[in-house]
């Protein structure tokens, strides 16, 4: 079932949602062309920008989070579990690229040995995704088979000139809509057919996608099992020659999930926390005895091989890039995965190991 609300009542809808759970909304920042997620409060307007600078991965995998605490006295140590169950929350306006990124993160954090910190947030967060109607030149989600007019998420939404349409697709999404209906005066049933204005918007968006400069960018030559073809590609030297070794690409990336665990001494104990880390950093793999990646070229290669080859090898061919274009916009030297994909050529004989 698709539900709808008049655009003029959008603010009321947000009010209704926040009456039963915390609602996060992308809002414009003062800074040019930036938006970020904030907790909705009356008067906040949803940004029409495509992507927030920081991706919504923060909601489930925050940049810094405390894992546990310790109290030490003499030779004794006490471990304090600082985990608390999260409250339910909803994230509105997640674009198709970012919505797919959760699937990439879920594979890492929920499979095999689940990460309880991530799992708890994920269990309590409802994703209300928003279809794109104005892709920009840095967009290439289509390269990874993502349809920006049909985003993943618990509830999908489309915003046209007249209305906001909501369609729950998961169990969590259905529960969310039930809760919303129980308090809402403005949400109406729209039927099961795609509304005409949504259909029109989808068609227009698809036309634009065909005009995108990266429309022809293909992932086909990469994927599971291609390590030997690309690890020793001759182009890595040139591609990485100016890489600053900063963490911008990693930290704005919705799928990068590497982390560090560190101890922080407080006045009365120790907090063990985890924080985002970057394979681009020189100390990422540093050991007391040395390290396997001596140069920036090797760190640079790791990041792209992981997205294009290693991750697909480990997770049934799924790529860990979603084509959101953040790194294309933010890299200080404008080097990025699109350029890497276009430039790399396979080493046909598997290279000289």
């Amino acid at each position, binding site marked *: 079932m698709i539900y709808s609300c008049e655009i003029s009542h959008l603010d009321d809808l947000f009010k209704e949602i926040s009456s039963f759970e915390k609602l996060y909304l992308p809002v414009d920042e003062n800074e040019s*062309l*930036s938006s970020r997620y904030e907790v909705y409060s009356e008067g906040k307007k949803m940004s029409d920008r495509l992507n927030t600078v920081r991706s919504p991965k923060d909601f489930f995998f925050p940049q810094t989070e405390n894992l546990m605490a310790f109290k030490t006295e003499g030779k004794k140590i006490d471990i304090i579990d600082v985990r608390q169950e999260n409250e339910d929350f909803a994230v509105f306006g997640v674009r198709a690229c970012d919505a797919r990124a959760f699937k990439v993160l879920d594979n890492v954090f929920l499979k095999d040995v689940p990460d309880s910190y991530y799992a708890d947030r994920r269990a309590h967060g409802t994703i209300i995704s928003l279809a794109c109607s104005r892709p*920009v030149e840095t967009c290439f989600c289509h390269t990874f088979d993502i349809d920006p007019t049909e985003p993943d998420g618990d509830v999908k939404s489309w915003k046209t000139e007249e209305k906001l349409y909501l369609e729950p697709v998961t169990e969590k999404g259905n529960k969310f809509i039930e809760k919303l209906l129980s308090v809402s005066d403005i949400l109406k049933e729209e039927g099961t057919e795609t509304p005409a204005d949504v259909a029109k918007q989808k068609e227009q968006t698809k036309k634009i996608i065909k005009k995108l400069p990266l429309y022809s960018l293909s992932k086909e030559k990469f994927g599971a099992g291609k390590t030997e073809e690309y690890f020793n590609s001759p182009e890595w030297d040139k591609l990485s020659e100016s890489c600053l070794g*900063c963490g911008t690409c990693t930290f704005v990336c919705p799928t990068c999930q590497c982390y560090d665990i560190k101890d*922080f001494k407080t006045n009365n104990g120790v907090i063990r926390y985890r*924080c985002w880390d970057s394979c681009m950093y020189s100390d990422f793999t540093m050991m007391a005895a040395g390290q396997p990646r001596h140069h920036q070229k090797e760190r640079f290669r790791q990041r792209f091989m992981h997205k294009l080859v290693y991750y697909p090898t480990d997770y049934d061919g799924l790529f860990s890039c979603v084509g959101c274009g953040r790194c294309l916009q933010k890299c*200080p030297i404008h080097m990025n995965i699109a350029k890497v994909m276009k430039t790399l050529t396979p080493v046909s004989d598997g290279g000289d190991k």
Partner: protein
Amino acid sequence: MQKLTRGELVRKAEELLDNGEVKHVLGWRAGEFDYDLTPSVFDTKDDIEANFRFDDFCGPNFSKYLVKKTRELEGKILVFLKPCDTYSFNELLTEHRFDREKVYVVGIECSGMADIFKIKEIAGEGISKIEPDGEYLSVASLYDDEPVKIKASDVLEERCINCKSKKHVVYDELLGEEGEEQDSGRFEEVEKLEKMTSEERFGFWKKELSRCIRCNACRDVCPACTCEKCVFDNPDSGTQNKSPATTFEEQNFHIIRAYHVAGRCTDCGECSRVCPQRIPLHLLNRKFIKDIDSFYGDYQAGQEAGQRNPLIDYTQNDIDPSEIFGGAK
């Protein structure tokens, strides 16, 4: 809009490669779009013909790259430096960070570089083409049939609006016309901050710095940050990078960095250019520059290679701390 053309730079590069003066050319490599150029080394004329770019999007300052490139590459490197870049070059020479003999500097006239974010603010997002057109940039969009004409001087980077100098302080050869030091308004923003109450100022920086994602791009691009091992990368320092364990640390990182480059920062503005969160980091450095000017007399880092900056040079006329902080002499 640059007065100097790509063709002039290309001809110069090819001439110097041909006559054997240099073996490599450090320049801007064409990207996917019209504005995403990458600093890169060119070794052949074919590569230069095909991929070398010079236009309003050549913001990156190459001086710091010379530290690494002069070590990695055999043979002399031609580097194109805009006036502001030459100050960083001199400062790095002062700090003995690379061998001057391995570099051939071609100073290039600069009319100011464009800020792509300002262009997008005016023309909208979804840019398909940007072409120079006299004093204007013609910006075509995925969504409009007609390109938008934007005056190049309306979308300059902040550091170019407040350009401190159009004069090259070092070069082996010059392309285009030499300019003069500028009477810039670069301290006006600092003065605005100085006029705030300390609470307001603290609030301003707290808000700005709270957006920091600790990517370290500001540090990694900074020509004054060339330590072999940064204190923020050293696990034994207790201030290792990556993330703030407390909000204080977030602020600490930038303030420590500003202190560390004080007296050596040439105000090249690369920190603010690369910040993914567009935090006006250059204002921290500019405050130091302004204070140094007022305490020790006008001083410009990088003006001359080999000069001693006032913070590491004692004279009997140096200001007494009591004149700033009060108290007994």
